[in-house]
C-alpha cells in the first residue's frame, strides 16, 4: 500500500457536491521531495482533490495516506470512520496550505500571522516562534515588512507571508491552490521564485497551477486532470511537450 518513499498516496478518491460527481476515482502517488503540478481546465476537480488531501473537503470514498497515515479517517474493517476534530487538526498541522486568495488574517501583522499557529497549535514558546518567524519572513524577502498588516502589502508580498505562515508549522507536505492566479502579472515571479527555492530545498509539494513554465521547470511530475479524473501524468517534458491524449493537447493548445 504505502512504501517508505511515498509522502502521499491517494486511491480511488471520489467526491460529489449535491449529486454532481466532481472527483471520479483519483489515484496519485507522490514521493518524498517530489514536486507535482496539477493542471487542467477549471471545474476539472484539481482544487477539490487538493482540499481532500488535508480534509478541508470530506471525500465520499477512497483513501488518502499522508506519510503512511490517513487524514481525517480511521480504518474500520472495509470502512473509513471520520475521526474527531482534534485528531484531524493534528494531522493538518503537518500539511501546509497556500490559498489562491492568500487568506492572511487581516487583524494581525505579518509576524503575528506567522507565529500564531506554532504558539497555539504546537505550544511553542512565543520568543522561539518569533525568532523562527523572523527567519522565515527574511527567507521570503520580507525582512522589512515584519510589522505590516496585510492590507499594507501587495498581493505578492501577502502570498509570500502566507507561504511563511505555512512553513512555520514545519510541514512535511505543502499544498498550493493556484497560488499566483489572484496576482497581478508583474507580481507572479516573486512568488514563483520562493516556491522554486522551496522545491530546491527538498520540500514535497503538490501545486495546482496555470503556470506552465513553472510546471515545466520545477515539476518532477505533471498531472493533467479533466472531468474529475487524471487523464495523463508523467514528467513535464512528456505531458507538456508531447501529450498523448487529445484532451491534453487541446487544453495545452488553448493555454499556450
Amino acid at each position, binding site marked *: 500500500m504505502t512504501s517508505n518513499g511515498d509522502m502521499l498516496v491517494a486511491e480511488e478518491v471520489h467526491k460529489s457536491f449535491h449529486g454532481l460527481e466532481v472527483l471520479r476515482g483519483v489515484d496519485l502517488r507522490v514521493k518524498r521531495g517530489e514536486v507535482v503540478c496539477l493542471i487542467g481546465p477549471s471545474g476539472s476537480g484539481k482544487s477539490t482533490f487538493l482540499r481532500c488531501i*488535508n480534509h*478541508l473537503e470530506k471525500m465520499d470514498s477512497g483513501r488518502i495516506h499522508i506519510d503512511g497515515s490517513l487524514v481525517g479517517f480511521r480504518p474500520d474493517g472495509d470502512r473509513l470512520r471520520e475521526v474527531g*476534530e*482534534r485528531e484531524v*487538526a*493534528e*494531522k*493538518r*498541522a*503537518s*500539511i*501546509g*496550505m497556500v*490559498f489562491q*486568495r492568500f*487568506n*492572511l*488574517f*487581516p*487583524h*494581525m*501583522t505579518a509576524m503575528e500571522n506567522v507565529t*500564531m*499557529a506554532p504558539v*497555539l*497549535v504546537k505550544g511553542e514558546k512565543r520568543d522561539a516562534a518569533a525568532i523562527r518567524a523572523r527567519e522565515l519572513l527574511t527567507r521570503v524577502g520580507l525582512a522589512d515588512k515584519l510589522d505590516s*498588516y*496585510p*492590507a*499594507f502589502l501587495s498581493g505578492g508580498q501577502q502570498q509570500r507571508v502566507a507561504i511563511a*505562515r*505555512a512553513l512555520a*508549522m514545519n510541514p512535511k507536505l505543502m499544498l498550493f491552490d493556484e497560488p499566483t492566479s489572484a496576482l497581478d502579472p508583474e507580481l507572479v515571479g516573486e512568488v514563483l521564485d520562493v516556491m522554486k527555492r522551496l522545491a530546491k530545498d527538498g520540500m514535497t509539494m503538490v501545486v495546482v497551477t496555470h503556470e506552465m513554465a513553472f510546471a515545466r521547470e520545477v515539476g518532477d511530475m505533471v498531472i493533467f486532470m479533466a472531468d474529475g479524473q487524471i487523464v495523463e501524468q508523467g514528467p513535464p517534458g512528456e505531458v507538456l511537450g508531447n501529450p498523448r491524449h487529445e484532451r491534453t493537447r487541446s487544453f495545452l493548445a488553448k493555454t499556450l
Partner: protein
Amino acid sequence: MSEFPPTTERIATELPSGGQRPPAGHRPVVVPQRHPWRWVSAALVLFLAAVGVYILVTNPNFNWPVVWEYLFSEKILSGVVVTLELTAIAMVIGCLIGVLLAGMRLSPNPIVSRGAALYIWFFRGTPILVQLIFWYNLAALFPSISIGIPFGGEAFASVSANTLIKPFTAAVLGLGLNEGAYMAEIVRAGMNSVDEGQVEAGRALGLRRLQIMRRIVMPQAMRFIIPPTGNETIGMLKTTALVSVIALSDILYSAQQIYAQNFETIPLLIVASLWYLAITSVLTMIQGRIEARFNRGAVSAFYGGAAAASATKRRTLRGLFELRGAAGEDDK
C-alpha cells in the same frame, strides 16, 4: 492597433484650440461648482435655531431655576445611578445571551439552531413593556421558585417568588433577556461577515473550531458588531425609562416622584432629559474610541480607516461651502 489613430493625434483633435497643442507647461485651472442654495438652507437652519433658543429663554413655563435646583438633587442622582446600573447589567446579560444564541444559530444541529430561533422569535415578537410587567408579576404565575428534579420531582430548595423577584431583578431580567434576542442577530451578522477563507486558513493550520472562533473570526467580526452594539447600548439607556411602570427609581421615576409632589412637571422632565442626553453623549464618545481600536489593519475604502473618518469630519464645514482652497492653491 490600426483601427485607432496614434494617441497624440487623438488628444490633439479633442482640444478646443483647433488641433494645436498648447505650449508645454500649461495647466488648465479647475473652477469648483458654486452652491448658492447651500447658503440659503444654512441661513434657514440658523434662523430656526435662533427661534428655538428664544423660546427656551423667554417662556417662563420652562422654569429654569427649578431645573437647576433639581438637576443635581440627591433623588435624581440616585436615579441616575439606578439607570446606569440597569443599562450596564442588562447589556452584559444581553451580550452573553447574544453570543450564546448566535453560536447556537450557527450550529449544525437543527434542534439547537431552531431553539435559538424560537427564543429570538419570542423575545423580539412581544413588546418589551409587556415583558417587563410580566417579569414583575411572575409571582402570580409561579408563587414559589424551587431548585430540584423537574417534571414533579423532589425540590431541594424553594423561595417565594415575591422575595426573589424584586423590581430591580424583574427589570434586569426583562431588559437583559429581551436584549439577548437583538444581540444574537447582531453577533450572527458579524460572524457571517467574516470571509469563509479565514476559517479555512485556520483549519489548514491545524487550529480547532473554538480557537478559530476566538482568534480569527471574533476579532474580525467585532468591527461589525461594535457599532450596532453601541447603538443598542444607547437605545437600552433610554429603554430603561420603561421600568418606571414597575416602580423602580430610575431617572424618570425619580423625576415623576418629585413632580407628583411639587407639580413642576416640565422642569423635572427637562432634568431627566438633560441626564439622558449627557449619558448618551459620553456613550457615543466611548463607542468611537472602541471602534477605532477594532479597526486595526483595516485600510480599504470599504472600512474607511479611523484616521480617514476623522479627517472627513474635520473637513465637513469646509466642504459645505467649498471655500475654494484648492482653486486658490492653483493660482500660485
